[in-house]
């Protein structure tokens, strides 16, 4: 009996620190709405620019949607982007995993499929899994990091 209690106490002492690591660890909050404007200027032979914004909705049940709207200018040609994606998301610590299930191209979207595959964010690509880190700023907005680089500003 004495040995059993002692053994149990040792097991608890062994597991307790790791349980605390998992339980006490502060969870990074995920906003329901996230508005990300961005601009990419491209110089060189195929000069052009992308001026767009992504509006994400992360529902509490793990599903969500993403609307991308903006313009693409490539070799003096103008295209309009307007796509709606349905996705699911999963949070593990700082990391977000986004699984884009379907992408609906709206009627006013004029971007050719081949160009879209080259220049649009991965959130506008069907059957794509995306990973990034998301950190909250003191004002409640979020900084989104790709590969350790702060790349997007998310207005909540």
């Amino acid at each position, binding site marked *: 009996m004495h040995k059993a209690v002692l053994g149990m106490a040792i097991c608890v002492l062994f597991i307790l620190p790791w349980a605390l690591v998992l339980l006490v660890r502060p969870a990074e909050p995920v906003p329901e709405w996230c508005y990300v404007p961005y*601009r990419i200027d491209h110089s060189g032979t195929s000069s052009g620019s992308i001026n767009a914004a992504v509006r994400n909705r992360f529902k509490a049940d793990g599903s969500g949607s993403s609307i991308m709207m903006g313009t693409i200018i490539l070799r003096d040609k103008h295209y309009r982007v307007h796509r709606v994606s349905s996705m699911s998301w999963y949070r593990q*610590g700082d990391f977000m995993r986004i699984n884009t299930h379907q992408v609906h191209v709206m009627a006013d979207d004029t971007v050719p499929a081949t160009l879209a595959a080259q220049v649009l964010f991965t959130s506008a690509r069907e059957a794509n899994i995306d990973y990034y880190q998301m950190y909250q700023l003191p004002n409640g907005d979020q900084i989104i990091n790709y590969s*350790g680089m702060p790349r997007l500003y998310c207005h909540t």
Partner: protein
Amino acid sequence: MARFVLFAKSLCFDADQQVFYPLNSPAHRIALTPLQSAVLRRVLNAQGKLVRNQALHVLFQREPSEISFAERLTTTIVDINHLALLAHAPGALIHQVPLIGCVLAEQVDAVPYSDSAPIALSPETLNTVQPNLREQPVVIRKKNWLLRGLLAGILLLNGVIAWVACQELAPSGHEGTHYKAYGQEARTQVFIAESLMPNSFAVQDALRRFRNLKPHLADGSSPSLLYINRSRTRVFTSTFLCAKPMAQKNNECMSWMVSAQELPDA
């Protein structure tokens, strides 16, 4: 059953009943206290070798007392020798070596004794039975302390590893969330990530691109604030253009990323 005949089979010590009696007069019994009995048995098991005070101290710890160990030991040895004399022993049983320990008197000639076995046991039997009686309690106690220390060390190490993992998994500071002032670029105030040096390539390259490309906000106006982030390669510049300070809400910040078809040097 633990009995010993002493002094050429004239005196018997029964460790179980804790008594002395002359072998020729078993009814004449002299009682010993449990402590006296334990000390005598410990000395007898040593087979004439010195029993150190540390080993005897363990026996005395079973009966706590305010009197010092040294004084109690001396009194106990004197009492044992006195009781042996009462049971017609021809001399002292135990000699005390001050500050070191106790030893069985040479003339005692102790032999284990049982009713079913002959009094004089063979030397082989002595060697196999008596060392076990002598050493077992001490060895087990040493092992326990060793195991306890080892276990405590493992638990401590486990705790330290968990603490390190906690620090690694939940970093308190994140790249791109803290900035410091850099200076002014035309009408734009420039901030750089806290980890960046003002003369670093990432900062100078971002400023060069900012001067050359003159980016603007979504409404076409020139940004009043520029926040330069860490950039791992020369291919990309990671910056935020803002109309208002980033710390406040509705700051109209937007990400401005530059891809200039530059490749890092080999």
